[in-house]
């Protein structure tokens, strides 16, 4: 016993290091659980508060740019409204599935593999987890955590984010992911090879998950990469088929990997809209 105590006293640096390391690693792996703790919400809101106040300064210099982008968006919306007024009767407007709220980006990070944004609205303004966030030009991300006044958004530039998307011209569905390399490109997986996709096709949201409504612009196809080129080779063998029991034949359907250029400029986010789906509870009930 004495020897053990002596050993611990001699190596107390290592012991303290290991204890603290285990503590920090549990923080890493249980981060979803610890997010809810009150201490963290309090300390996080201090960080958010200071960033918000610092951002007022930054925002002042970009007022001109924000103003012109808002004007542009206004123009597009006005044109759309004109079309609706002419073509469709008012009945269709009563059938609302989604509502929008505005919010402002406080902090935006691009440098990590799991980027998050902070927006200045929270539970008090009616935001909840898994609401979509868009910009006037395209998608931005999905809310993954809310506190009283702020909420954190999982950006599309996050290797965990998966968004349902489709090709506008051919309506083939796929999953949109980020490969961690460049901030203006995403990767669209699971599009079958038979789909006749060309460079320049526009990609829109699929509307399968009720996070985003169908038809929000995401980006444009910039490159098509064939995924399964190696397994494409035909295997021929001569001889008795009984001896070749170890041969495994795999006839996969080939999927395309498509590189998509984002419409949204993720460097430069100011005003965003949060989408709330009104039929979400009903949808989840039937999905179970």
């Amino acid at each position, binding site marked *: 016993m004495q020897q053990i105590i002596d050993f611990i006293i001699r190596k107390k*640096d290592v012991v303290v*290091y290991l204890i603290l390391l285990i503590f*920090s690693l549990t923080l890493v792996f249980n*981060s979803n659980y610890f997010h809810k703790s009150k201490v963290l919400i309090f300390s*996080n809101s201090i960080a958010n508060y*200071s960033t918000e106040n610092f951002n007022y300064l930054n925002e002042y210099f970009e007022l001109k740019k924000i103003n012109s982008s808002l004007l542009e968006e206004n123009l597009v919306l006005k044109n759309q409204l004109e079309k609706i007024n002419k073509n469709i009767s008012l009945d269709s407007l009563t059938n609302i599935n989604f509502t929008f709220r505005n919010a402002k980006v406080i*902090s935006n*990070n691009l440098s*990590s593999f799991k980027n998050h944004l902070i927006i200045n609205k929270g539970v008090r303004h009616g935001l909840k987890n898994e609401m979509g966030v868009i910009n006037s030009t395209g998608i931005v991300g999905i809310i993954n955590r809310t506190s009283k006044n702020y909420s954190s958004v999982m950006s599309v530039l996050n290797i965990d984010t998966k968004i349902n998307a489709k090709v506008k011209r051919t309506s083939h569905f796929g999953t949109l992911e980020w490969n961690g390399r460049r901030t203006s490109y995403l990767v669209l997986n699971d599009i079958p090879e038979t789909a006749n996709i060309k460079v320049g096709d526009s990609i829109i949201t699929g509307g399968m998950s009720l996070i985003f409504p169908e038809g929000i612009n995401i980006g444009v196809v910039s490159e098509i990469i064939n995924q399964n080129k190696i397994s494409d080779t035909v295997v021929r063998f001569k001889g008795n088929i009984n001896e070749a029991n170890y041969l495994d034949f795999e006839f996969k359907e080939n999927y395309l990997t498509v590189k998509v250029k984002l419409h949204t400029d993720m460097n430069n986010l100011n005003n965003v809209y949060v989408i709330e789906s009104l039929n979400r509870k009903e949808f989840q009930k039937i999905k179970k």
Partner: protein
Amino acid sequence: MVSIYLLIIKRFIFLVLIQGLIFNNFDFFDIYDPYVCLVFIITFPVKVNKITFMIISFVFGFALDLYTNTLGINTAACLSIAFLRSYILNFVFGSFYDPHGIKLMKNYVIESTFSQKFLYISSIILIHHLILFSLETFSFEFISLIIIKTIITSIISLIFCATFIYIMIENEK
């Protein structure tokens, strides 16, 4: 001894704020940020007890985590290099390194050779970035990406940290 802790608190607040508010939004080539906060651990007084040092850098990493909206990643990385720093100092400076901390930071900068300074700062930065990025993704799928990102970010951090330290020793008495 009190003045040392005052100095540490001053540097703590200054470096957390400067990293969280300015350098996290630096976005060099879109995805590379310099980690200036490592100056805190590189220039931490040698005089202070190692256990105290580790606990302070644990809290330092936690404060950085609040600004980057992650949990535990910066904490683990900062804690690990705080633990490894005495070994690195011993390895790089050899007999010149005194664990009792009579020498000032200025002495280290003036009396050591360029390669010693370079090796000390770059090894701390490389280890920190490697731990940080591999904990962040935590998958073998991105291993080539992690290595590329570690190297590029280390070069940027090295330039910024070296500049910072040279500015700091101008003001040291």
